[in-house]
């Protein structure tokens, strides 16, 4: 209840800005700044003409005749002109069209100013907008020239047809809108310029970035064996930053060894000499703590125009994890064999007993048969896990997503585990828990594994808890125990395949080492995440986050084109709230 209220107190995002951002395609960088703005200026001109047409009946301080004249001029001259310019831009796309259209704008507005004196001041501010539009095409100087010509034409219009200009709230608003447009356009131009510069720099660094991101360590030396280039992966593999490596020799920085001998590069690149005989070499490095780091090495030469070797390119791949995986597989085979052999031995023993002693009493016979059945079930479970792990490895596990109502699932699995083990499991499930998106079978396996681990690794009988909460986007399930816990290294490796905390010779707890690997794989297949918090002798808490079936405010499942019969439900649905009939 407390968690639900805490989650509920979180402010929801109205989401309109984000929804619009998702709906509208993001602008891409295609073509020059001028070309892009030219393409957008002509439609903007049409919109301005239409808006002027809509606003012209409200021209302040004017007579009805003035308003009619203005309406007629816009409808018969300016609007068709802007549409013609737009059509021409689509068809021809000439670079002279922009300046020519701007000149047309200026002349037409001059016509309005002369014919309708009250429109004079409004038109002046319209000139500012035209100048701003032209500034976006021809640059700031061009825009200022247009503005200057427009001001001169306004004076000429006043001389030709004297009349009081009207300066009032309407014109002030137009003035502010024009200035604002100018600032927006120029600001956009500046941003575009900066973005173009940044794009140029990015392209310049692209080659460096590709080299930096390649997984293998790449070391380039000159003909004398001095390191001239050292990529990020080389820094990671050799644990040596580039500024410490560049200028030194390979041998001094890496100290590579082949078999038990150190490679001698005093007479030239030793790897290059060896490469004649093998394609890829397996070498080792001795780390500062004495551990050996196995590497796969390859080498190639860069030659100058004269044919001499100018640079040598070395690449290294750290195969420590591969070696560890091999060792883990070997350990797994040993462990799995042991895990399988134990129940098989019992089954074999009791089966032989039944065969050798056919006159066993009914009670003894039943005991033997129950032991065989129990061990067969155990064996089946081990084989199932192995098969599931194998299918996960081959990418053949597909989770069928559906809306999962978690409380009954968690209650049922907890009850089964309690009944099977005799352990009490405390449940804290938030009321009104929303459904999650996932697979029922997958979730059942996940919960069973986590509960099984919680029971197994808390042999002293401490409390085991199952908790379920939700926020606006996720539904979270936690399984906790107060058992032996894990240290930092164990926590980091516990989800790895075949990993086990104990060596095969001194194992207190049974297991194949693939349980948590399966759990993580299934959780990720459901689009979720899993994390663990643990400390030695303080227990562990595994937290699984699944996607909520429907975040607030998104599509409400209903067939397209069919409304809810109830007015209230339909209103709810359109507000993004789940109507009652689908509770």
């Amino acid at each position, binding site marked *: 209840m407390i968690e639900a209220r805490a989650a509920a107190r979180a402010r929801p995002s109205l989401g309109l800005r984000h929804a619009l951002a998702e709906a509208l395609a993001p602008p891409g960088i295609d073509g020059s700044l001028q070309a892009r703005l030219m393409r957008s200026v002509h439609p903007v001109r049409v919109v301005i003409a239409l808006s002027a047409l809509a606003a012209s009946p409200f021209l302040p301080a004017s007579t009805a005749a003035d308003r009619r004249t203005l309406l007629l001029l816009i409808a018969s001259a300016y609007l068709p002109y802007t549409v013609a310019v737009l059509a021409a831009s689509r068809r021809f796309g000439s670079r002279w069209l922009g300046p020519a259209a701007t000149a047309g704008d200026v002349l037409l507005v001059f016509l309005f100013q002369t014919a309708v004196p009250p429109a004079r001041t409004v038109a002046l501010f319209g000139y500012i907008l035209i100048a701003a539009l032209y500034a976006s095409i021809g640059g700031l100087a061009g825009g200022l020239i247009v503005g200057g010509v427009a001001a001169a034409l306004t004076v000429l219009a006043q001389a030709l047809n004297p009349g009081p200009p009207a300066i009032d709230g309407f014109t002030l608003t137009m003035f502010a809108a024009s200035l604002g447009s100018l600032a927006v356009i120029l600001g956009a131009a500046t941003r575009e310029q900066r973005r173009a510069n940044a794009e140029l720099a990015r392209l310049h660094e692209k080659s460096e970035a590709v080299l930096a991101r390649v997984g293998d360590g790449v070391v380039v030396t000159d003909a004398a064996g001095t390191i001239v280039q050292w990529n990020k992966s080389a820094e990671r593999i050799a644990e040596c930053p580039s500024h410490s490596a560049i200028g030194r020799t390979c041998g001094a920085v890496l100290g590579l060894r082949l078999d038990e001998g150190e490679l001698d590069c005093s007479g030239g690149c030793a790897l290059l000499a060896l490469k004649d005989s093998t394609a890829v070499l397996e070498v080792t490095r001795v780390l500062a703590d004495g551990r050996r780091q196995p590497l796969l090495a390859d080498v190639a030469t860069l030659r100058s125009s004269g044919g001499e070797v100018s640079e040598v390119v070395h690449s290294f791949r750290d195969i420590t994890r591969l070696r560890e995986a091999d060792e883990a597989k070997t350990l797994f085979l040993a462990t799995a064999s042991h895990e399988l052999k134990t129940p098989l031995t019992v089954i074999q023993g009791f089966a032989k007993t039944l065969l050798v002693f056919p006159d066993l009493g009914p009670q003894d016979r039943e005991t033997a048969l129950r032991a065989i059945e129990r061990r067969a079930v155990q064996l089946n479970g081990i084989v199932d896990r192995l098969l599931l792990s194998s299918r996960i490895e081959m990418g053949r596990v597909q989770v069928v997503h559906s809306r999962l109502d978690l409380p009954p699932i968690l209650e049922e699995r907890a009850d089964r585990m309690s009944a099977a083990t005799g352990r009490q499991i405390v449940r804290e499930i938030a009321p009104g828990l929303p459904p999650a998106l996932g697979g029922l079978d997958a979730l059942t396996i996940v919960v069973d594994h986590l509960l099984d681990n919680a029971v197994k690794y808390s042999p002293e009988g401490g409390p085991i808890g199952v908790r379920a909460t939700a926020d606006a986007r996720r539904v979270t399930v936690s399984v906790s125990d107060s058992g032996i816990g894990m240290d930092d290294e164990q926590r980091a490796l516990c989800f790895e395949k075949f990993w086990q905390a104990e060596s095969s010779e001194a194992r207190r707890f049974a297991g194949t080492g693939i349980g948590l690997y399966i759990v993580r794989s299934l959780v990720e297949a459901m689009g979720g995440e899993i994390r663990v918090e643990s400390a030695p002798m303080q227990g562990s808490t595994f937290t699984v986050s699944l996607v909520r079936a429907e975040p607030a405010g998104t599509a409400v499942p209903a067939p397209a084109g069919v409304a809810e019969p109830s007015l209230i439900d339909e209103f709810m649905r359109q507000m*993004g709230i789940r109507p009652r009939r689908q509770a």
Partner: protein
Amino acid sequence: MSGLVAALNLALGIAYLAIGAIALIEIVQARRTLGFSHFGAGIVGLAFTCGPHHFAHGFHVAFEGRSGGPLDLVTVLVGLPTAAVWVGLRIEAFRRGRGDRFIAGTPRWLQALPTAAGMYLTALVSAGLAVGAGGLTLRAWMIPNLLLIGVYLTIASFLLRTQIRNRGPLRGWSLSGLSLTGIFPTCALMHAAWVVYAAAGRYEFDVHGFVAGLLAVPAGLYFLWTVRGLFLDTVRDWHVRSPERAGQPAAAG
């Protein structure tokens, strides 16, 4: 023009009252099985305050000499089709028809809608400034209408957000959703036009509209509180009560 303004406002008032009545009937009928619906009550509150507001305005224009201005007429004319579409779809749903239409993709007329809305808004603002050129005086009895503009625009934003978010999964639009979304901003503009005329001195104070407006503000805020609570799961509405607890079998599907 005044006659048309009066007729349209009276029609709108009757339509909103009808919507409120339908919602009230649904609440009463479902109360025994599904409990009380805050959301439904919110709709009733909105409809039973907005409806009388339009009704009072239409009545004053028709019979008491209040002059309906062009802004009044334009805002009602623009708002009427969207309301008519939604009410028509509700009538169809009531008669067990589909109650909605699916608009596949985004046709050109729908793509042009934002531009047209921008032009409409520009023209309205220009006209409003022209009306207010002689000076606007804001009085206390106009404040409820000002607040309602904000309330209705907020409701419209929730509706718009849902339509935009549903666009992706549906690969189209719901006509019911679009028409319902169009009702609230056009209604907000109607109230804005009323404020402009009242502040310009063209409309006198009338107690009926004032009371309706005064009640509409808390009704709108209650509706918004309910919507927010339903999103945050802090409000228990009938939609979170399972039919099993009400003694009925679970709904199929």
